[in-house]
Each structure stands twice: as C-alpha cells, then as structure tokens.
C-alpha cells in the first residue's frame, strides 16, 4: 500500500520560493503566470493495515508543520 502526501504552504502564507520561480518564468518569456506556489510531495510505502487516519496522524506529528502548512493525503 502506498500513500502520497502533498504538503503546501497555507493560503495567505507568503511563499518567497514560489514567487522567485514565478519571476524566473517571466524572465524566460512565460508571461501568463499569475502565481506560483511551491510545495512538496512525500511518498510513503506502507505495510498493509495502515489507514488514511494513520497517515493523517503522521502529517500532524511530523510531515507538515500545521502552523504554516496544509496537507492532502492520497492513497494509491
């Protein structure tokens, strides 16, 4: 069983890295980019019997810092 966790900065938290990527895209001539948000993807290879709730618990305790980040769990 695999799970994929998407961690993103919460809406409203300024993302300086995303902003730098947006700026660089503009420099390359990609004019239509209104905004870029950069996050991370964490793939977990899990033993059978782990539930989505267990993965959410992992997110709360370690994988995301919920002060500034939100997460989404996708079971594969």
């Amino acid at each position: 069983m695999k799970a994929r966790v998407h961690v993103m900065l919460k809406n409203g938290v300024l993302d300086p890295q995303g902003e730098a990527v947006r700026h660089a895209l503009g420099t390359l001539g990609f004019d239509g980019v209104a905004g870029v948000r950069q996050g991370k993807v964490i793939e977990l290879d899990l033993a059978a019997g782990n539930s989505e709730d267990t993965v959410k618990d992992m997110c709360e305790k370690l994988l995301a810092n919920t002060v500034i980040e939100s997460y989404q769990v996708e079971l594969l």
Partner: protein
Amino acid sequence: MRAAVIVFPGSNCDRDMAVALRAAGADVSMVWHKDATLPDNVDLVAVPGGFSFGDYLRCGAIAAQSPICNALVAHVERGGYALGVCNGFQVLTETGLLPGALMRNANLKFICKTVDLKVETSASAFTEGYNAGDTVGFPIAHHDGNYTADADTLARLDGEDRVAFRYTDNPNGSIASIAGVLSENRRVLGLMPHPERAVEEAHGGTDGQALFRGLLGQFAQA
C-alpha cells in the same frame, strides 16, 4: 546554575554556547540527542544553532522528534528554563514549546552579518540584564529565519509582552520584525540571532554577555 547543551548531528554552535554559558559561571554538560534523560538538577537546557539533521524535511523538524526533546519538553513543563538560538529556535517552534514558525528568508538568501536588535522587554531572566529599548548587536547566520505566526498569536505575543527582541532593520521578512519570543511563563526564549557569538571582544562585540549574566544572576539570587 546547571546547564545542558543539546548536541544533534549537524549542530555547529554547541561549543560556542557552552563557552558563553561557562564564561558567565554556569556548570555546563553536553547531552547527545539520543539520550532520553537530562542530567540531574538541570536548570537550563540550551538548544544550539546549526543544521540539525541537515535541515531535512523542515529546519528543526527531525530534531524535535529526537529522544532528548521529550526530556526537554518535560523539563519545560516542570517549569525549567530553555534557550534556543537559531536552529535551536526552529527546534523549539517545532516542538510546540514556542508559537509560530520560521520560514525561508523573504529574499531567499543565507544572511550572515551582525544586526541591530531592539530589546523589547526586560521582564524575563534572559533580558533582565538589558533595559527595554536598548539596541544590541548580535550576529545572524541563517537561511530560514523569517518568523511567522497567525494574527491571533501575534496579538497574544504583543499583549503579553512576549516579544523579546525585534530587528531594527528587518533582514529576513519576519512578521513585525520579530527576532525572538518568550513562552507564556517567560522561561523559554527562542531567537534567531546569536548572543553566544557576542560575548568576547574578539567576537567584535560583547552585547550578548548581559543575556548570559542575567540568566546566571537569576539563579544566584534563588
């Protein structure tokens, strides 16, 4: 005063911290991150700067889950003192002992220079050696020192006089120019600038001495 300095893989200011504490008169022991207990009768736990666990996942996130951090949390819950500098501040926010979080610097650059800070409160063991309104110069050396917290947390920090230091010229985008914050019981201080790198003339300044001497003074009276 008995102090313990935690050493993680990747800590690089642990010895500087020990030197600064000893110079102020503390009895210092170094503790390894895999230790599950602190030395007996420790008054202060110092969490030093560096790049614990290579800053993997998030700065301080892995360190905050190490066995010694359980002992650190228990120490603080018993009313013990803790000081986190730079990566140590990041660790303290990741453990939840201090509010807020440290994000990538707004200009995306690693910043290494001495900056001026305004002492916002002298009402803590860490800052009683200063007067509120004093300007002090401490070195900073970080890539992720951009302090952030939600509006409610900020209002609480201001209302409870828990902002210890602010940058006079914000180098990293920190909200409200916050450089260091205190816990609710004022016994935990986290700050990005390095007071332990400003305790000898050879450092280029000695503004950090008052922090360590004030802390030691607190225990001399007790």
